[in-house]
């Protein structure tokens, strides 16, 4: 491949194909529709199948069915559409289905749906939150690797910005372990052998033939814990070493936070940032280390505050935590945040820094250059 200007929705589609995805199903809802359209074009070109499912419930069902045959599969929606899929996603975890799920979210209020969901019970899905298109290409591929390594659905948490920002990217395959399913997937080959396979959320005797549904649930809960302990938490940190104030944000807004923090640094403020990349497992240790010397930790989310709980849990009272975000949407409701495009963010950071005027000497038009 070569570098091209791709919107995030197309880059994610290319990355899925590069990762080996050969089945996709979805139902239109902005800004997920954009990815669905690209998959509908790209998958047939590589011998895959894209289904314009009749609803979200059917979309997740189709993806579940394809994934159960060992075909790398994905589905998704916005947070609202994913609400409809909560039963399926929770139970797909119990059925140990490797499935990549996209939340092309509207703003960031689906953090809890992502990290405390899916649905009922103790099921959990790892959650990856890219900040921009190049990172989405990497994380999309990581999502498939994790889904197969742990036989569990994995959520990629994007947004309208990610879907619609065009970037110069070269979608190349990230080398990862092959997506192997030959020891469990349904192909018909074991039918009639006296030992036919079963893929089931109710348990398939894999923890012992006599194991009950209850045993299965308990074993799945342990498998989830092992998975979350086994996945390396990822986060980006910057300027934290001597920071008075550490700002935490994820996804596209984190890129805004990083830009604002970088500028304030250039202006002389002792401010740093932490950007969780895996939301589940949450990078608690990285955060705790980064915030060690800080006077305060500020959390920005484009919601009324959800991740802030994870930040508090990570810090356990060691550093005071304040929430500086709020839900901000333009009239489309798709998730473009007026707060990010004006002074709101910088003003909040100045509030936290507790300064009105910074050392403006260092302020010049070139501060953001290398």
């Amino acid at each position, binding site marked *: 491949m070569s570098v091209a200007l791709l919107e995030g929705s197309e880059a994610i589609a290319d990355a899925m194909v590069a990762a080996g995805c*050969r*089945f996709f*199903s979805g139902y239109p809802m902005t800004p997920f529709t954009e990815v669905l359209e690209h998959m509908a074009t790209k998958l047939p070109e590589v011998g895959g*199948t894209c*289904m314009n*499912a*009749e*609803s979200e*419930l*059917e*979309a*997740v*069902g*189709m*993806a*579940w*069915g*394809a*994934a*159960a*045959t060992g*075909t790398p*599969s994905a589905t998704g929606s916005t947070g609202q559409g994913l609400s409809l899929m909560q*039963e*399926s996603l929770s*139970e797909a975890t119990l*059925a140990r289905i490797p499935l990549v799920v996209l939340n092309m979210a509207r703003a960031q209020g689906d953090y809890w749906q992502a990290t405390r969901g899916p649905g009922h019970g103790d099921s959990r899905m790892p959650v990856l939150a890219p900040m921009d298109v190049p990172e989405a290409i990497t994380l999309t591929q990581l999502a498939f690797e994790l889904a197969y390594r742990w036989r569990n659905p994995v959520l990629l948490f994007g947004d309208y910005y990610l879907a619609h920002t065009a970037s110069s990217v070269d979608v190349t395959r990230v080398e990862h372990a092959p997506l192997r399913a030959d020891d469990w997937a*349904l*192909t*018909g*080959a*074991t*039918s*009639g*052998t*006296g*030992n*036919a*396979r*079963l*893929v*089931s*959320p*109710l348990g*398939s*005797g894999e923890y012992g033939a006599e194991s009950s549904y209850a045993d299965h649930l308990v074993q799945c809960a342990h498998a989830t814990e092992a998975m979350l302990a086994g996945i390396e938490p990822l986060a980006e940190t910057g300027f934290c070493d001597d920071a008075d104030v550490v700002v935490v944000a994820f996804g596209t807004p984190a890129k805004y936070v990083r830009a604002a923090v970088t500028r304030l640094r250039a202006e002389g403020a002792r401010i740093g940032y932490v950007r969780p990349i895996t939301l589940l497992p949450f990078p608690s240790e990285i955060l705790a280390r980064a915030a060690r010397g800080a006077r305060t930790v500020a959390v920005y989310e484009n919601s009324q505050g959800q991740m802030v709980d994870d930040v508090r849990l990570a810090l356990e009272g060691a550093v005071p935590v304040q929430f500086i975000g709020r839900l901000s949407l333009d009239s489309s409701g798709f998730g473009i945040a007026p707060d990010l495009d004006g002074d709101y963010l910088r003003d909040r950071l100045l509030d936290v820094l507790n300064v009105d005027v910074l050392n403006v000497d260092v302020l010049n038009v070139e501060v953001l250059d290398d």
Partner: protein
Amino acid sequence: MTDRFLPTALPPVEAAHLVDDFGPSLLDVAEHSLCPGCGEPVALRAILEAIEDVGAAQRTIGVIGIGCYTAFANSLDIEVLQALHGRAPSLATGAKRARPENLVITLQGDGDMVNEGLQEVLHTAARGERVTCFMLDNGVFGETGGHMTATTALGQRTKNTLDGRDAEQHGFPIRVSNLIAELDGAAYVARGAVNNAGNVARTKKMIRSALEIQEAGLGFSFVEILTMCPTGWFVDTPDAPDYLTSTLAPVHAPGVLKDVTL
């Protein structure tokens, strides 16, 4: 009087050949926990035998819904993809699209298919998906205690219609086979019953036709099978076959509703 009875504990000593062997061979464990007189194991047997008849035993993926029949998921000797309540047709769609060379079937009940997941089967049929759906129709949610479903016949007894389903209060039953037959993607639609041996034989033929339609790639195929649920109907087991005839069958009339090969 005792000597009227012949020994039946062991195979005969006289020269004889086996023509039917306990459970179907695609069932690992014949024993099950379903109620006495339940029609579901009877229908299951017919389906499993038909799969063998069409020579697809080693190519079959069975997607199973949630109802009393789910108890067989662990003992079938065909690969089973267990679906959530109502969702089997979408899983079957995904599986078939991913592996067109497989024979993909679903096994669902009326509660599963006509209540929780009605639109799944209709969309799948409309798409002309090359899968075969089997519906075990007893007009009750057997598994959760025998309440009325969307197929319960008017006058039929269920846990919450002990005096019989009444249209004014509970609405009318849905003849889902008729709805499916109306869809252009459906290539074969039939309704059978397992309340007597003749009907079992006829139903097995329908099942075979439905599977052959799938194998020929002609579109969606569907067989509804009326099954006895003496427990949910609150009738004695010997009376259940007749109760089926007099109550369910007049609404859900057995027969072939559509066959594109004719």
